[in-house]
């Protein structure tokens, strides 16, 4: 008996945790007439998923929002990796003047949340006439001090003898950094990639500041436009929209659970 009590408690808790997902999916496939039906029976009388999802696309360009999300997340991740990997390699394995200062700046910047920099960055982008562009959506995130810190820790454990041998074999520093050392840190790279994509797919604050043009909105901002416009009338379509926005990250999580948990929990900097 005592063995079942923990499972029972966990199961009850899990039901509460999953209830929003269940109701979201259920309402997304129910007809509007069934909205007053508070039962949680999974099979709707009138299967209306097609109608609800079609309505989302009718009201707001949800496909466009998702595409924007993909463009922004990919752009940010590529520049983050391209700038952080060489900097981390130099910090871990090379000597240069100002190294200690640069490392101190990286650690200091780890403490500064993006929201604290939003105002001057916004004014700068406004002065440069760059608001309402993909560039404005991505630019503040081009440097990930977290990536530099993480990769530096990981690169430091790479054996110096192999680097020295590669140099003697005529490898360039570029090749050593990208083809040898980074290959030894692929778990860190994939964990960081997941962390970055999840953080920027779900981010609302910055897009809300720099984008006024519906055509450029990433999924969370698009979802906000949609729920504001709907003002609580058509929950079937709203829940269909929420399902679309949430689905990519949830599906990736279900497919790559271990890497996901590693990626998100490697940092408290959420």
């Amino acid at each position, binding site marked *: 008996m005592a063995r079942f009590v*923990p*499972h029972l408690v*966990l199961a009850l808790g*899990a039901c509460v*945790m999953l*209830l*929003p*997902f269940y*109701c979201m999916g259920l309402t997304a496939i129910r007809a509007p007439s069934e909205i*007053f039906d508070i039962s*949680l029976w999974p099979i709707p009388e009138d299967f209306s998923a097609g109608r609800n999802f079609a309505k989302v696309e009718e009201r707001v360009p949800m496909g466009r929002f998702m595409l924007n999300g993909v463009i922004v997340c990919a752009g940010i991740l590529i520049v983050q990796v*391209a*700038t*952080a990997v*060489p900097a981390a*390699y130099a*910090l871990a394995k*090379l*000597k*240069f003047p100002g190294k200690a200062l640069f490392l101190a*700046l990286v*650690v200091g*910047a*780890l*403490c*500064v*949340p993006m*929201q*604290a*920099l*939003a*105002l*001057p*960055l*916004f*004014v*700068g982008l*406004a002065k440069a006439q760059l608001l309402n562009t993909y560039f404005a959506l991505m630019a503040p995130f081009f*440097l990930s*001090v977290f990536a530099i810190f993480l990769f530096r820790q990981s690169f430091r454990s790479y054996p110096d003898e192999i680097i020295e041998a590669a140099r003697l074999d005529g490898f360039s*520093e570029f090749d050593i950094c990208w083809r040898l050392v980074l290959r030894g840190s692929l778990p860190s790279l994939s964990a960081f990639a997941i962390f970055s994509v999840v953080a920027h797919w*779900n981010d*609302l604050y910055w897009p809300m*500041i720099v984008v006024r043009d519906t055509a450029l909105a990433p999924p*969370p*901002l698009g*979802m906000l436009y949609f*729920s504001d416009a709907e003002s609580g009338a058509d*929950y079937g379509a*709203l*829940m269909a929209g*929420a399902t679309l*926005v*949430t689905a990519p990250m949830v599906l990736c*999580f279900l497919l790559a*659970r271990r890497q*996901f*948990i590693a990626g998100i*929990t490697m940092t*408290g900097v959420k």
Partner: protein
Amino acid sequence: MTSLDLSPLATIPARQGSRRERRMMWRALAFVAPAALLMLAIYILPVLVLTGFSVTDYQLGALDWSVIGLGNFERAVSDPVFLRALVNTLIYAALVIPLGVGLALGIALLVHGTKRTRGLWEVAYFLPVTATLVAMATVWQFLLHPSLGPVNAAIRWLGFEPVAFLADPALLIPTMALMGIWQVLGFNMVLFLAGLTAIPKDLTEAARLDGAKSPVDRFLTVTWPMLGPTTMFVMVTTSISAFKVFEQVAVLTKGRQGSETLLYAIYLEGFEYAETGYAAALTLIFLALVLILSVGQTFKLDRKVHY
């Protein structure tokens, strides 16, 4: 002859060495340059500009502005909206930190005791962490709807009066905290599970032999002290994320009925009302609060990786 031969042999490698070293140094600087330039543009200049704005009455788009010293900070401490936002954020944090940490510890202890079903519980409790909060806040809005939502249906079924979660001003912040706790639980649970796995089994066994018979005794003598650093880390990350609460306000109330939080008040002043100078001062106050919390976190992060 020999001395003439020896001197070049002795100097050439040294000169080559220093030339090579210098070349390596330039290579290293080239590797760091892009990140260093971005550091300047994204962190250093903005922090300086922000500090500069905070002592002016600059409004975005205005042609003239003047330095007003600490005027913006004086305005902040007597601004009822800002003070309300600060109090709301503190109430939110006071709900999310103990419940988000305490419940997560409880769940982690239970999950740690299971074997075959562990993966299942991890998925169930971690799922909200990955979900887009804006979308899920819309779902919660529906769940808590006074007449259509299943939560109030359950409350009515139990024989109570329906609760106006999203209409009663006194309940707005607690309702947002409910969503915050729901989202942060899985994250904290995973951190606690990692901490629990790191506790050596022999310690628990030794405590059992020393007379710590009940699980509660063993928890108090071994698990809780050993979890100290993890608990500290979880508390700090939870408080930082609590101070950044924004999405729930944007979806549910837009700050109406006195439900602004710190970040939402800053958003309104800086980006809706274009009160750049005043918003900069508020941002500095927000930054100071977060820095106090995160200095501890960075030390922890550093130590976790070094040792």
